[in-house]
């Protein structure tokens, strides 16, 4: 091994202009194998004999050029380092691939089974409904009012569970319109409310912690004084932004 490396270092010195593009197989004695590629080294064993011969024949040169051994040592060192770095790189790449695969798998599992905990808690609500529905309106002692009270309790229980999971209700009646959490479905002229006040909530909105799940769908007050403006605009005020989209 050491001999081979020496020879290569030698060759490097002896024929500096030799094209590195030359194929090692075509000219085994040509000392162009400056490349420290691991794979190239492994492909060479057939040529080894010849290479070693040339090393022997040129051994005089080795003595004539001072410092060659140092260079050869350096080369050996560099080759070893390159080899080690390559090994490390390959290992890291494999590790990263594995990590990527595992993360993807875990994500799929998290999505598939992530609701398990919440569902378990919701089962209590299902149980309550089951119990309530054991009674039918024909049952003996069925009382609409206590049935209604029961439904209210179950509803509250359900909302409590959802709120415990971070659900926040958005019911903005009477508040100023806020496009960050409300969606304006229509406007209504009204002198009773300040301009841009939510006068009616068609559908409540919900947030999960700080993220909006669904905006509240609302009707927004338009103060009569402001109505003048769109009239001035003529027929332009009629269309809605959702139209004419491709």
């Amino acid at each position: 091994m050491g001999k081979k490396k020496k020879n290569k270092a030698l060759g490097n010195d002896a024929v500096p202009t030799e094209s590195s593009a030359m194929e090692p197989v075509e000219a085994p004695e040509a000392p162009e194998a400056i490349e420290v590629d691991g794979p190239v080294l492994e492909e060479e064993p057939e040529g080894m004999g010849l290479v070693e011969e040339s090393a022997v024949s040129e051994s005089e040169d080795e003595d004539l050029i001072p410092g060659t051994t140092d260079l050869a040592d350096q080369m050996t060192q560099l080759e070893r380092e390159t080899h080690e770095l390559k090994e490390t790189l390959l290992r890291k790449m494999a590790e990263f691939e594995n990590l990527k695969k595992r993360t993807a798998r875990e994500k799929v599992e998290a999505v598939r089974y992530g609701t398990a905990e919440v569902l378990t808690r919701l089962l209590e609500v299902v149980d309550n409904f089951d119990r309530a529905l054991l009674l039918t309106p024909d049952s003996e002692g069925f009382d609409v009012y206590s049935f209604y009270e029961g439904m209210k309790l179950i509803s509250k229980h359900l909302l409590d569970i959802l709120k415990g999971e971070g659900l926040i209700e958005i019911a903005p009646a009477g508040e100023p319109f806020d496009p960050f959490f409300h969606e304006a479905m229509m406007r209504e002229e009204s002198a009773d409310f300040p301009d841009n006040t939510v006068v009616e909530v068609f559908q409540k909105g919900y947030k999960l912690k700080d993220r909006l799940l669904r905006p509240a769908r609302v009707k927004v007050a338009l103060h009569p004084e402001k109505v003048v403006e769109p009239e001035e605009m003529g027929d332009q005020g009629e269309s809605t932004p959702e139209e004419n989209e491709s």
Partner: protein
Amino acid sequence: MNYILGIDLGTTNSCVAIFENQSPVIVPNKEGSRITPSVIGFTEKMEVLVGHIARRQAITNPQNTVFGIKRLMGRKFDSSEVNSMLRTLPFEVVKAENGDAWVEIMGKQYSPQEISSLILKDLKENAEQYTGTEIKQAIVTVPAYFNDAQRQATKDAGTIAGLEVLRIVNEPTAAALSYDMGNLRGKVAVYDLI
């Protein structure tokens, strides 16, 4: 890591992706949605609202909510396309000094490039937040029928948003490229329905 954004700047919705680990990743916006409506709203206090938020307040603020700005990109005010649009748009379109179609919001005029840049800037910020790095370059898609003026306007919009637009890619080309990236299952025809 130097990310280059891939931006679909659409008439109705826009979308941004980054390329990571040899595959494209769609960047969700602040609301968690993978698409952002191409809508810009200006409030009375001159705050700029972008995307879903702008769309949700459109009915309460029609004159100051701009949508479909892509249809005005690089077009002359006197062109037949702009003329036919004027009747249906609730916001005001005006003729700029160079003859281009601009929009006027509360007395201030904006070029379609500026309006588009507000969308691009929002997409850029979302991607920066998502990746945790500053992003300065992008590739933007345009309809295949876009002429030079419209392509240049799209590039300008990027520049205003602080993005160097490395390339403008035709939308059907982008779709075809996606199939080259391994999305191919069987034979595929790509066509651009305007």
